[in-house]
C-alpha cells in the first residue's frame, strides 16, 4: 500500500515461527543503520507480517575469507566482498499478520505462519504503526514514539485498565515518568479513576527530575479532577502543596491482617502475629487500645494466660505495636475516616493521590496502602455484586498505583495481602493495580503472570529480566531488545493492551508544550464526546 515510502532493508532467507525469521540485508543497507527494536513489515505473497528486529549479525559465506588478511587490507577486495560473500543479517520476530488486501475489518491477527523465501523486509512506516497501534484519540493515548520513528505510539487505555499492569525498570530508568504519563492518560481519557499511593511525593503536586527543574504533578495539570491527600500535613505545607484531606488512622481501623503483613518489617515472631488474632477475638476493634493498656502486672498476666499468649511473645508484639502507635498519624480516635473520604472522592470521579510526606519508610507505606485498599476492595466487591444483581451500572473502574510492589507481592506475603487478591481476581470487580517496581524478580510468579500489560525500562539483572518476560512467547527475542535499551528515555511495552511488543521513547513531560497537550481533556473534539453531551 505504501511500499514506495518504505525503506527496504533486505530479504527473507531463512527462519521458523519459533526461532524468528532471518533476513539478509541489502547491499545498500549498512548493518550499522539497523538497530534492535526497530519495527519492520515483511511483504509475503499473500499477507503482510509485522515484526521487530531482535538481533543483527555479520555473516560470511566462506570461512576462508576470515582467515585471509587481504580482505581487511585491500579496500577494493573488501568493497567487492561486502554484501556478497560477507553480508549483514537480521533476526526478526514476527508478531502480527494482515491479509494482503489490508482489510481493516479484521485488523492485524497474531502470527501463525511465516513469509516465504525472498520476501522483502521493509522498515515499518507511520501508516503501519497507526494500523497496528491505532490513531491518537480519546481512548488511544499516545505514550511516545517507537524507537527511531516520529510517529505516535498509542495505547488503548480502556483495555489497559481492564487488567492489572506493571511498570518495571532499574533505578533511574524513568519508571516514575512513565507512571505519571500513564496516570495522566487515564485521567485525560476518563478510562478509570486513580488511587495513587505516592511514597515519594512525586505525583500529586510536583515531581522531581534528575539534573533539571521539578515537573508538574497531576493536581497542577488537572486541578478540578485530582485531590491530594496527605499523611503529613506539615510536610505538605512546607512543600507548598495544597491538600484536600489529612489522613489519620484510628487504632480501631488496624486489623490483625495489617500487622501480619508487617511481620518482617516490625520484626515480629509468628506467635506474636497469631496473638493479634487472639486479641481481636477478645476485644474486637478495640484490640490495639486494649493491648497497649496491658502492663507488666498480675492482672495482665492472667489475661494473657487466658489467651494462651506467652509473655515474651506479647513483649515482641507490643514493641511492634508501639512502633505503629508512635506514628503521628495513628491516633486512638479519629473524627473522619480516611477510607470513607477516599471512597467518596473516587465515587465522584475524583482521582486521589495520597502523599506520605516524611513517612517514607516501608512500614508506613505497607500499613496504609494495605489498610485503605482492603476497605476499598470490600466496597468495590459489594458494589459490583449489587450492580450485577440489579443489572445496574458497575462502579467506575479503579486503578490503584503502588510502588515498591515487591514488598506487597513477594511470594511470602502475596497470598495474604489484598494486593495479591486484586492482582489475581479484582479485575472482575473493576479495580486493577498499577504495580511499580525495580525488582520484578521479587514479585510472586503468580501475580506477575496475572499482569496484563508490562512496561519496562532497562533491567540488567538476569533474574529480573526473566521475571518480567516470564510466559511471553518469543521470550529470548524480547530479552535481547530489553537488555539493549538505553538506561534513560527508552522502554519496552508488551502484553494485553498492545497488539505486539514495541520498544519506544516515552513522550516529553516537563516542557510547556507537553503540559499544554497533556493538560487538556480529550472529550471536546471526539464524536463520542458529542454524543455524551446530547
Amino acid at each position, binding site marked *: 500500500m505504501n511500499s514506495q515510502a518504505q525503506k527496504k532493508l533486505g530479504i527473507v532467507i531463512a527462519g521458523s515461527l519459533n526461532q524468528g525469521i532471518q533476513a539478509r540485508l541489502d547491499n545498500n543497507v549498512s548493518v550499522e543503520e539497523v538497530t534492535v527494536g526497530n519495527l519492520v513489515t515483511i511483504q509475503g505473497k499473500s499477507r503482510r507480517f509485522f515484526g521487530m528486529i531482535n538481533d543483527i549479525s555479520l555473516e560470511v559465506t*566462506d570461512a*576462508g575469507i576470515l582467515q*585471509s588478511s*587481504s580482505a581487511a587490507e585491500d579496500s*577494493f*577486495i573488501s568493497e*567487492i566482498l561486502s554484501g*556478497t*560473500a560477507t553480508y549483514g543479517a537480521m533476526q526478526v520476530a514476527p508478531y502480527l499478520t494482515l491479509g494482503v488486501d489490508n482489510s481493516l475489518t479484521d485488523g492485524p491477527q497474531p502470527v501463525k505462519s511465516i513469509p516465504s523465501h525472498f520476501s522483502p523486509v521493509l522498515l515499518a512506516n507511520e501508516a503501519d504503526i497507526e494500523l497496528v497501534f491505532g490513531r491518537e484519540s480519546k481512548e488511544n493515548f499516545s505514550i511516545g514514539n517507537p524507537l527511531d520513528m516520529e510517529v505516535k505510539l498509542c495505547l488503548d487505555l480502556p483495555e489497559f485498565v481492564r487488567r492489572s499492569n506493571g511498570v518495571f525498570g532499574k533505578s533511574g530508568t524513568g519508571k516514575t515518568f512513565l507512571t505519571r504519563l500513564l496516570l495522566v492518560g487515564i485521567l485525560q481519557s476518563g478510562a478509570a479513576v486513580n488511587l495513587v499511593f505516592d511514597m515519594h511525593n512525586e505525583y500529586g503536586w510536583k515531581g522531581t527530575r534528575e539534573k533539571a527543574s521539578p515537573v508538574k504533578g497531576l493536581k497542577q495539570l488537572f486541578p478540578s479532577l485530582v485531590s491530594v491527600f496527605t499523611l503529613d500535613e506539615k510536610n505538605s505545607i512546607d512543600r507548598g502543596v495544597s491538600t484536600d484531606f489529612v489522613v489519620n488512622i484510628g487504632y480501631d481501623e488496624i486489623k490483625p491482617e495489617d500487622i501480619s503483613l508487617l511481620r518482617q518489617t516490625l520484626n515480629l515472631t509468628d506467635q506474636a502475629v497469631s496473638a493479634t488474632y487472639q486479641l481481636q477475638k477478645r476485644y474486637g476493634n478495640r484490640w490495639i487500645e486494649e493491648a497497649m493498656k496491658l502492663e507488666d502486672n498480675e492482672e495482665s498476666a492472667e489475661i494473657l494466660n487466658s489467651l494462651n499468649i506467652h509473655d515474651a511473645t506479647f513483649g515482641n508484639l507490643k514493641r511492634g505495636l508501639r512502633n505503629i502507635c508512635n506514628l503521628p498519624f495513628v491516633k486512638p480516635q479519629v473524627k473522619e475516616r480516611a477510607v470513607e473520604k477516599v471512597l467518596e472522592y473516587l465515587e465522584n470521579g475524583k482521582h486521589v493521590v495520597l502523599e506520605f510526606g516524611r513517612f517514607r519508610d516501608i512500614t508506613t507505606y505497607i500499613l496504609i496502602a494495605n489498610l485503605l485498599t482492603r476497605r476499598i476492595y470490600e466496597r468495590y466487591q459489594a458494589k459490583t455484586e449489587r450492580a450485577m444483581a440489579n443489572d445496574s451500572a458497575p462502579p467506575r473502574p479503579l486503578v490503584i498505583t503502588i510502588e515498591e510492589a515487591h514488598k506487597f507481592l513477594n511470594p511470602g506475603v502475596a497470598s495474604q495481602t489484598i494486593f495479591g487478591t486484586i492482582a489475581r481476581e479484582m479485575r472482575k470487580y473493576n479495580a486493577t493495580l498499577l504495580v511499580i517496581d525495580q525488582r520484578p524478580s521479587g514479585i510472586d510468579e503468580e501475580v506477575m503472570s496475572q499482569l496484563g500489560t508490562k512496561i519496562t525500562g532497562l533491567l540488567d539483572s538476569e533474574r529480573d529480566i526473566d521475571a518480567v518476560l516470564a510466559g511471553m512467547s518469543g521470550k529470548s527475542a524480547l530479552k535481547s531488545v530489553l537488555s539493549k535499551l538505553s538506561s534513560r528515555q527508552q522502554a519496552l511495552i508488551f502484553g494485553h493492551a498492545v497488539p505486539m511488543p514495541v520498544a519506544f521513547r516515552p513522550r516529553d513531560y516537563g516542557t510547556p508544550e507537553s503540559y499544554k497537550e497533556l493538560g487538556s481533556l480529550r472529550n471536546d473534539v471526539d464524536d463520542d464526546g458529542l454524543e455524551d453531551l446530547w
Partner: protein
Amino acid sequence: MEGVNERLGEVIEASTGGFSAQCYKLYELPALGELVKCHYDETEILAVTCGGSTNSFEPGRRPIARGHDETSEDSLYQNNPQLNQLLRSEFGTVVVGFRQEGKYYHYLPSFPVRLHSFVYRCSDEEIIAFGESLEFLILLEGAQCEVPVEELIAACIRRMSVSNGPDSGFSVRAGKKLTEMYSGDYQRLRAILARLR
C-alpha cells in the same frame, strides 16, 4: 557496422564454444580478454580472445635464428621480407554470447560461426552494452584454453572496465559477480580479484 569496427582476421577453426582466427597481418593480434565478434546471417556472435600465438605456416618447418648480424629486431624483419609470408599470427576465442535483433544474449548461440567468417574488434559502446549483464563470466570460467582461466577472466574484466570508464564501478560489479561464482573457493576468487588492477 563493418565500417566502424576494425577487422582483425578470419576464422580458421570453429566450434560452438569457441573459434580460432588468423590475423591478416603478422603480430596484429587482439589483446587477451578482448571482445570480438563475427556475423552469422543476422546474428552477431560475440567471443572473448583467450590467447594468441605466432607460428610457422608449415608445421614441420621450424623458424631459425637469423639476427646474428642484425643491429635490431626491426632491421631483421626488414632484411628478411619473406618472414611476413612464412609466419602467421593466430588467436583463440571463447564464445560468450550473441546479439539478435539488437538484443544481447549472454549464453551460447545455436550454431558455431562459419569458417572464413571475418572477425571484428567490438567498439566501446558494444562492450558497455554487452557488459550490462555479467552472466557470460560463467562461460569464461568453464573455458578450455591454454591460459589459466583466472588470467582470462581478469584480463577480460580489465579490458571491459577500460571501456566502461574508471568511475563506472564496473570492476566492483564484476567482482561481486565473481564472488557469487566462487563462493566456497575464496583462494581462487582472491587470485582473480588481485589481477583486476
